[in-house]
């Protein structure tokens, strides 16, 4: 599903070069739930950004679903992200000026979908995360766990094959964290969605199919 071969990422400034990823190679199968662990600054988020096509590797090859990213340009990468990838972030990244349902609809805005269908799909996604009754609320009226569930609904509303989650339980207490983890596990088992999750939490990582550890930009296991 996702193939990374000798991926390196170097951040350059005028005076300093920082090696964020050093020749990382990972092969993620379709329907797999993979977790990535490592200390802060080891390159986990950079790796996730590269898989999510929002950052480019300095070296190496990346292919998703059999297609090399070299075959895509800016517009087609945006289209690919929209149709095949769902994102979940530690800090939720909900737009405070939009209601819950409008936040969930966001990825569908960049597809040719009528507003009626958009609303229907968003409601279905909110049902899946148990927030149908909070549709008209605004993010400021929700708890951290509810916000993350909205973010999950937004990630799954477009029915992507792959979900990339960057520390989805990082800002939540253990009870809410487990709730979110249960939703992700359910998506992986029932919908066969491929999930790549960056986490600091060993307990959460143990619930996934496979664990990869990074240290100083290199793959440890």
């Amino acid at each position, binding site marked *: 599903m996702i193939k990374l071969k000798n991926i390196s990422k170097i951040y350059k400034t005028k005076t300093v070069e920082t090696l964020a990823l050093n020749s990382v190679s990972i092969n993620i199968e379709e329907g797999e739930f993979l977790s990535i662990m490592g200390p802060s600054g080891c390159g986990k*988020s950079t790796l996730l950004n590269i898989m999510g096509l*929002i950052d480019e590797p300095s070296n190496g090859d990346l292919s998703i679903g059999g297609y090399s990213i070299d075959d895509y340009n800016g517009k087609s990468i945006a289209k690919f992200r929209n149709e095949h990838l769902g994102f979940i972030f530690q800090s939720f990244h909900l737009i405070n*000026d939009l209601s819950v349902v409008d936040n969930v609809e966001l990825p569908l805005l960049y597809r040719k979908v009528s507003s009626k269908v958009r609303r229907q799909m968003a409601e279905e996604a909110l049902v899946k995360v148990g927030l149908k009754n909070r549709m008209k609320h605004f993010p400021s009226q929700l708890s951290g766990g509810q916000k993350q569930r909205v973010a999950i609904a937004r990630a799954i509303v477009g029915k992507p094959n792959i979900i990339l989650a960057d520390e989805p339980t990082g800002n939540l207490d253990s009870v809410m964290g487990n709730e979110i983890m249960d939703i992700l596990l359910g998506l992986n088992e029932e919908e066969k969605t491929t999930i790549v999750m960056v986490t600091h939490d060993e307990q959460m990582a143990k619930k996934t199919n496979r664990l990869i550890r990074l240290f100083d930009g290199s793959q440890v296991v």
Partner: protein
Amino acid sequence: MIKHILTLIWNKKKKNFLLLLEIFFAFLILFGVFTFVVENMRNYNTPLGFDTENVWLVYTEIPGDADSTEIAEMKLLLRQELIALPEVESISYSNNITPFSGSAWQTGNDRNDFEFNTRIMQHDEYYEETGGLNLVEGRWFSPDDALSKYDPVVISKQFRDQCWKGKPVIDSLFILDDEGEVSDFVKIIGVVDHFKYMGEFTSEYNVTFIYEPPTSKELNTIYIRVKDNPSPNLEETINNRIASISKRNDFVIGTLESRRVRNSRKTWMPITILLGIGGFLIINVALGLFGVLWYNINKRRPEIGLRRTMGATKSDISKQFIGEILMVTIFGILISSFFTLQFPLMKLFDIENINYYYAMLISAGIILLLVLICAFYPSRQAALINPAIALHED
């Protein structure tokens, strides 16, 4: 996307309120400026209806108790002497209501099948040539008109269109004088296309020319049409001839063109000042808009990163920011337009409705263009934000 932008604007109504207010007042002020400018420029673009180049005016003071026969003889002689000058093309007489003088003679009544109001001009048979009038129907006065049963009049096209629209007007009779009896009917013998003698920036009004023979002591102003580039001593020659024939020195010679320029300056000045104020306002609004957009974009970097991650292209981001500011602007213009529309609907001032509509269109056009220009650069910068970086700036 439009619905999404409208939702965003509505949810951020408090944040957008000041911007809306700025657009609202900018539109109102520009509307005021452009109503004045459009009204004046549209008037300026309609012809005066008479020539000012190479036309000189001489004001003479004929005492009311002067002997009519002596005056008639003097005026005939004066005419002969002046027309004999090789640089003089034509001579005519009028009363003291002359172009750009500010004087007006006005009458009107409802004693015909219609109600009217008209300015009155008094001229002899030579004014058509001296003034360079353009007749669209009928003819100008002739000496025989002094003997006709009904007093002959020449009217302006606007007067014809207002009161005789679609009807034959030549040889029509109507009561001109407010106090007139049946015998005071006048007969229309001609129609001139324009005659804006009050100034280039005044609107068209109804004008009626009535006839007086050149020998009449009512006509104490002399119009002299001279050839192009008259010699420097022509004015002195004319001055000497008039002085010797009239035995007076209390007359003034001036050119109609200089009076036109002096008269127009009174309107050009406020137009220039108002446009300057309008321009200053536009610059201020532009700076404000630019600042607000720049601030908004910097505050919304994580949102931009998120949208890019969700599949928005660079152009989607640009379009969204331009779309948001355009929507707020359109709302501001619509609210403002509600108030400005009351001016033509309630006829608050004596200004043609079309001038208000033009002013609204120009004001809206300028504000929209300004917003587009101010939104273009910040929106492009927003599109260039790297989502991977922006998402970690929360």
